[in-house]
C-alpha cells in the first residue's frame, strides 16, 4: 500500500522534481559562494596589499615588508597600540568579574527590581554605540565640572575615562554569555555536591565554577575584543593626549590610503582571529 503510493508519486513527478531540487541547491550554493567572496575578498586584498611596494597601496608593484618595519618604528602608533591593550586588559578583567557576579545574581535570585536590572543590562546592547558615546561624553564633562568645583583641580579625560566606559558596555555582554552557561548548568549537580558533603563555598568552586568557566572565558574574550575594536566610544572619550589605536587608524584612513594602514590592519586581523580561535578552543574543550 505504502509502496504503491510512493511509486505513483515518482511516476507523477518524474525527473523534473529532482532537477528543480538541484537547481534550487545550485542557486543557494552560488549565493553562498558569492557571499563568502563578498566577505573575504576585501580582507584578502587588505592583507595582500600590506606587502606591496606601491606607496599608495592600491597596485601590486613588488613584495616588501617595509610597511611593517615602518609601523614598528612609528612611536605614536606603537604608543597607541599599547594604550589600547592596556585599556582592553583592565576593562576585560573588571567587566568579567563584575559581569560574572551580576550573572549569578540574575540567574540564582528572585528579587524586587530584577526586571529593571534586566532592562539596564539589556540596554547597552541594543542602543546604538554613538548614543552611549555622547551620553558618556556629556556625563564626564558634567562630572568633571562637579569634581572641579569641589576639589578645585581641573580634570581632563584620559585613559581611565575610556576604561570606565568600556567596562560599562562590556558588563552587559559578559552577563549575557555567563547567564547562558548558568542556564545550561544542571542545578542538580550542586544538589549532588551538597549531598556528598560539600558546603556552599566548596560546591561553588569545585562544581559550579569549573563548569561555567568556559562561559566566563567566552565572556572575557568577547569583552576583550569589544574593547580592542571599539572606536566610537574611544573617539568620544579619549582626551587630547591619550591616543588609542582605532582612533589613530581612523585619523590615518580619513587622510589617505597608505599600505601602513594595511599592515596595521593585518596585524589587528591576526589578533582577532587568534582570539576567535582561542574562544572556539575553549568551547570545544567543554
Amino acid at each position, binding site marked *: 500500500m505504502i509502496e504503491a503510493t510512493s511509486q505513483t508519486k515518482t511516476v507523477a513527478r518524474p525527473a523534473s522534481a529532482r532537477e528543480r531540487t538541484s537547481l534550487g541547491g545550485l542557486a543557494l550554493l552560488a549565493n553562498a559562494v558569492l557571499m563568502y567572496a563578498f566577505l573575504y*575578498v576585501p580582507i584578502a586584498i587588505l592583507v595582500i596589499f600590506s606587502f606591496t611596494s606601491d606607496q599608495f597601496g*592600491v597596485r601590486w608593484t613588488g613584495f616588501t615588508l617595509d610597511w611593517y618595519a615602518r609601523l614598528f618604528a612609528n612611536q605614536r602608533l606603537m604608543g597607541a597600540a599599547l594604550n589600547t591593550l592596556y585599556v582592553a586588559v583592565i576593562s576585560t578583567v573588571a567587566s568579567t568579574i563584575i559581569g560574572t557576579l*551580576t550573572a549569578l545574581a540574575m540567574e540564582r535570585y528572585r528579587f524586587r527590581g530584577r526586571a529593571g536590572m534586566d532592562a539596564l543590562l539589556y540596554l547597552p546592547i541594543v542602543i*546604538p554605540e554613538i548614543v552611549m558615546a555622547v551620553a558618556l561624553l556629556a556625563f564626564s564633562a558634567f562630572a568633571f565640572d562637579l569634581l572641579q568645583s569641589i576639589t578645585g583641580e581641573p580634570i581632563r579625560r584620559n585613559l581611565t575615562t575610556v576604561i570606565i566606559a568600556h567596562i560599562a558596555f562590556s558588563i552587559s555582554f559578559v552577563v549575557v554569555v555567563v547567564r547562558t552557561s548558568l542556564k545550561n548548568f544542571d542545578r542538580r549537580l550542586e544538589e549532588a555536591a551538597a549531598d556528598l558533603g560539600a558546603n556552599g563555598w566548596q560546591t561553588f568552586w569545585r562544581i559550579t565554577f569549573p563548569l561555567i568557566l568556559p562561559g566566563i572565558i567566552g565572556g572575557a574574550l568577547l569583552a576583550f575584543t569589544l574593547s580592542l575594536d571599539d*572606536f566610537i566610544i574611544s573617539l568620544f572619550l579619549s582626551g587630547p593626549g591619550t591616543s588609542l589605536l582605532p582612533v589613530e587608524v581612523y585619523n590615518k584612513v580619513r587622510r589617505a590610503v597608505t599600505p601602513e594602514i594595511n599592515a596595521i590592519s593585518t596585524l*589587528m586581523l591576526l589578533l582577532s582571529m587568534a582570539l576567535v580561535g582561542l574562544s572556539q578552543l575553549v568551547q570545544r574543550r567543554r
Partner: protein
Amino acid sequence: MALDTLQKQRRRSGRLRLAGLLGPGALWLTLFFAMPLVIILLYSFMTAGPRGNVIWQATFGQYAALFTKDIYVNAYTRSIWASVLTTLICLLIGYPLALFIARSPQRWRTPLLFLILIPFWTNFLVRIYAWQIILSNNGLINSALDSLGLPTQTLLYTENATLLGLVYGELPFMVLPLYASIERFDFTLMEAAADLGASRWRAFLRVMLPITMPGVAAGSVLVFIPTVGQFVVSELLGGAKVDYIGNLLQRLFLRSNPPNWPLGSAMAVVMMAVLMVMIMLYFRSTTEEDR
C-alpha cells in the same frame, strides 16, 4: 518557631550574598550608563552657550529645531531609509546564505558559521578601509577597467558605496540569528507541505518563513539599530557628502565650532526613542509568536 527564625536567618544571609553579587554591576551601570542617559535627557532641554557650553535654561528649542529644520529632518529620514535598505538587502542575501549553511552536512556547518563569525570579530574600521582600496579612483576596480581600456567610474564617496559598506559590515549580524532559527526548523514540514500540494515557493512562504520569523525579526533588529547610528561608513565610503544622524552627532559634540551639546543631546534622545519603540514592537511580535 525554631524553623521560622532559621528561615529568617537564611533569608538574611541570602540577601547579603545577593547584595554582594548584584551591587557592583548595578552600581556601575547606574552610575556610568543610566546617569549619562539622564544627563543627555537633561541637556536636551537646555540652551546652548556661545562657547560650546551648556546654559541651564529650559527650552524646547532643540526639539523644535530637530522637527522643523530641513538639515535635521533630512538626516533622520536619510539614516532611517539607509537602515531600512541595509536591513532588507541583508535579509535578502542573508536568508539564502543561512539556509545554505543550515542545509549543509553536519560537519561543514561549524566551519561555515565560523567563517561568518570571523569578520564579525574583525575591526569594523579595518573592514571598511578595505573597500576604500577596492573602490577608490585609482583603486582595484578602476585599475582593472583602465587596463581593459574601459572608462573609469566614480565609485568611492557615493551613497551607493555607503550602502555597500553598511551591508558588508552588518551581514554577519543578520546571518547568525537567521541560522539559529533555520537550523531548528523541521524540514519534514516542507515535505508535508509539498505532499499537500504546495509548490516549493508557496511552502516557503506559508510554512518556513512564518516559523523562522523570530530569526528574521532578531536579525533585522541587530542590523537596523547600529545602522541608524553609524557615521564611519558614510564618512569613509560616502565621503561625508551628505549628513546622516551619526555624522551630525559627531559634529555637534566634537567638531563644530562651537559645539552644540543640547541640540546633539536632543538628537540622540529622539533617535533612542525611535529605536525603543521599534524594539518594543519587536518584542511584542516575538512574544506573540511564542503564544
